[in-house]
């Protein structure tokens, strides 16, 4: 089963290129034929000349980034993008969501749908779509939202998993909070699930865990690609009966997206360290899983500075846990993916503790476990946790708060109105997100 990736905007195209790079190296370097075959089939197709071509559509409103990504891919020698599988214009979206969604998206709808259709036709069976984009800019956010809507319209029975990169809290783009609020509110209706990476967190991973001195966007994108690869590469799931699962996205949805009001997924991976240190480290499943569990419940998305004081409240404690009270992160559902040596002996009981989940799902339904005996991306043992929990609540709330403050003074609104959205649309988006925040806050 194959996945079609749609890379939107500068961020989407840069992250996507790193992702395919990671997956190709993983598939190629590993000496397990079935694993390689499944991985290649899922994300690449073999051209008649034997080259690996990514199942991807690259979209941007200006050409520089796409050209850069395509040539970088070709330079790797191991894989490349389809020659014609890209669409760009001459001029960007000006960091304006309304420009992307109301003007540029509709204008180029046909061309983009055509490119997607061609990729879908190359797939024997379609597992689903993964649009990759950022929420701060104009193209990724605005055009990306519009294209997600098109995917929904044209392929109503396919899964759509959106991957979003949230910007640094302190400004990459001044109107980033408006763009983010508008995107998230719309995607919540359109997407099956939304997988989020935050630049701030990834930056910390680069500086504190990977010990990179001068962090560039390539470093950031490589970490995101590593984490995403850890989620998307082949695994054995309970439903796949001893073979690598052929429905990765569908199974991810049924594991995590159990309720339409709860669609935000966060990812964390353990271990993450500088590649030069890997050779000198030994890993054990009990240690890795213990750390990972604490990372989950104390809501720290990286292994470093974990707050070991946080523990699940005793079962008898009543009352709702709101944003401000305590730092315990309640989960709705978790997907734990283990890769590497001795994977079958890993003891995951800690994740089945009912205290870390809400009361509506029994823990054996809330936790899904996927395994793969193949080591991933040079780590002898690694664990990835995809979590539908309160982990993104605080960053989401901050984003809405800042956007609301700006909206209260009507700053920049004229820039959006001139492209066709109204103050009502803004208010609707704010309302939807307040609803999401409220739902997540009240998880107990």
């Amino acid at each position, binding site marked *: 089963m194959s996945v079609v990736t749609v890379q939107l905007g500068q961020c989407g195209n840069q992250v996507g290129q790193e992702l395919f790079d990671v997956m190709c190296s993983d598939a190629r370097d590993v000496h397990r034929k079935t694993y390689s075959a499944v991985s290649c089939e899922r994300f690449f197709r073999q051209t008649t000349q034997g080259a690996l071509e990514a199942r991807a559509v690259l979209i941007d409103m200006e050409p520089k980034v796409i050209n850069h990504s395509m040539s970088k891919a070709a330079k790797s020698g191991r894989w490349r993008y389809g020659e014609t599988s890209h669409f760009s214009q*001459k001029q960007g979206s000006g960091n304006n969501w309304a420009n992307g969604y109301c003007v540029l998206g509709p204008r180029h709808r046909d061309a983009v749908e055509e490119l997607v259709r061609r990729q879908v036709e190359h797939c024997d069976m379609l597992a689903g779509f993964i649009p990759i984009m950022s929420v701060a800019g104009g193209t990724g956010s605005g055009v990306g939202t519009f294209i997600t809507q098109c995917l929904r319209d044209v392929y109503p029975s396919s899964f759509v998993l959106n991957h979003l990169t949230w910007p640094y809290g302190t400004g990459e783009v001044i109107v980033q909070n408006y763009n983010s609020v508008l995107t998230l509110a719309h995607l919540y209706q359109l997407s099956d699930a939304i997988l989020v990476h935050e630049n701030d967190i990834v930056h910390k991973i680069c500086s504190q865990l990977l010990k990179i001195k001068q962090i560039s966007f390539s470093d950031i994108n490589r970490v995101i690609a590593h984490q995403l690869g850890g989620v998307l590469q082949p695994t054995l799931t309970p439903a796949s009966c001893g073979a690598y699962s052929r429905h990765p996205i569908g199974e991810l949805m049924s594991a995590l997206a159990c309720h339409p009001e709860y669609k935000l997924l966060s990812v964390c991976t353990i271990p993450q360290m500088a590649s030069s240190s890997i050779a000198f480290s030994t890993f054990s499943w009990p240690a890795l899983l213990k750390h990972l569990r604490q990372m989950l419940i104390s809501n720290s998305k990286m292994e470093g500075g974990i707050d070991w004081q946080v523990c699940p409240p005793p079962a008898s404690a009543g009352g709702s846990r709101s944003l401000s009270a305590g730092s315990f992160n309640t989960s709705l559902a978790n997907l734990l993916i283990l890769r590497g040596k001795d994977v079958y002996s890993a003891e995951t009981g800690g994740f089945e503790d009912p205290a870390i989940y809400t009361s509506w799902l029994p823990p054996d339904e809330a936790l899904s476990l996927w395994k793969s005996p193949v080591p991933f991306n040079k780590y002898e043992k690694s664990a990835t946790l995809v979590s539908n929990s309160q982990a993104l609540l605080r960053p989401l709330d901050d984003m809405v708060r800042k956007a609301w403050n700006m909206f209260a003074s009507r700053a920049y609104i004229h820039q959006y109105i001139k492209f066709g959205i109204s103050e009502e649309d803004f208010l609707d988006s704010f309302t939807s997100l307040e609803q999401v925040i409220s739902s997540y806050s009240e998880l107990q």
Partner: protein
Amino acid sequence: MTQSVVVQVGQCGNQVGCRFWDLALREHAHVNKRGLYDEALSSFFRNVDPRKSDGGACCVGGRIQHLKARAVLIDMEEGVVHGILQGPLREVFDSAQLLTDVSGSGNNWAVGNLTYGSAYRDSIVNKLRKAAEHCDCLQCFFLIHSMGGGTGSGLGTRVLSLLEEEFPDVCRIVTAMYPSAEDDVITSPYNSVLAMRELTEHADCVLPVENQSLVDIVNKISLMSHDAKPGCVLKKESTVTSGQGGVSPTERPFDAMNNIVANLLLNITSSSRFDGSLNMDLNEIANNLVPFPRLHYLVPSLTPLYTLADVNIPTRRLDQMFSDAFSKEHQLIRADPKHSLYLACALMVRGNVQVSDLRRNIERLRPSLPFVSWNQEGWKTGLCSVPPVGHAHSLLALANNTCVKPTFMELRDRFTKLYKKKAHLHHYLHVDGMEQSAFSEALSSLSALIEEYHHLDATKARLIPDAPRLSIAR
């Protein structure tokens, strides 16, 4: 890739424009080693094969035949433009791009705007349209003119409103040279205020530049280079005022000052021309930096002003460059942004600078900079990997800051001093189409603008609480 057209009006506009083209050619020569007409070049230049009969426009990717600037040069007296046509840049301009007259505007805004504005309206529109037609995807018009004179200020603002009429979707960025208090043109306050009204109504962004600041910067650099410290030599080509390595062999007076403005224009467009890890297009500038339609005056500051040649002295540290961008010596108008209120700020970095350097400096400088309550993280950042000639990295900061208020207030004072006495008013009122109401309207437009800035300033000291959030029924 998008194209931009430069429209230079009046003596000052054309002299600055001339320096711009010189430096642009130098920059591209530095970067473009293979003589191919690439996308970056096409943003400001057309490639023309004069042997072809159909006008000979060549596409991107071929060898450079003959570069023609995407420009329209307008002046109501011939001296400056003819000087350009006799100088080394003559090859870069086509006679069809020029519009001149003989007698000048007599430092009278009304003559420039109304008399010449009507007489040459069609001709101007034709030349603009021609320039636009040569562009695949026209993104922006850069208008360069002074505020104190007659042609630049009067005809320049007329061109601005024509641009809005004929090309409403194309961004209009105006680089306006404001006169200093000691300007030798007596009527410069009238011309400036009359022009200000047009800029407030019709421009998308205005980059105000004050002559006095340019003089101060030039003096600072020559003090630096004449400093007796041994081994303290400025690297050739590296000062922001230097035109060395460009086309013109000798430097004339005012060249140093005009080079600074030319560098400003080069840096602002660098991210749309060259590659980088975080691109910043011209349309993003307006969208991010203009929160309310009339408050579009962006104070520019350029660093570094020079690099030292001596390898024993460490190159000015990156962090120093960021600090300098906010100091009042580096602003191109006489203002102190640190003590006024920031509405928004853009940082366009060129050269070998990574996102972590950018973040570190923003975090470091942020506490000392007052930002308006609803835009506490109001930063727009861009990283372009190609540095300017002679530097390893450079930074252009554009600040939408209430520090323009004192500049505008001073302008208004100088205007009122003359207007109260009705001094020189008859020169303006004699012009066909000019009425006294134009003066009072211009004055009230300026006052309203100052009032808007004042209103925002007043929020500076107060602690504004978060706006109450929407509450959801559960």
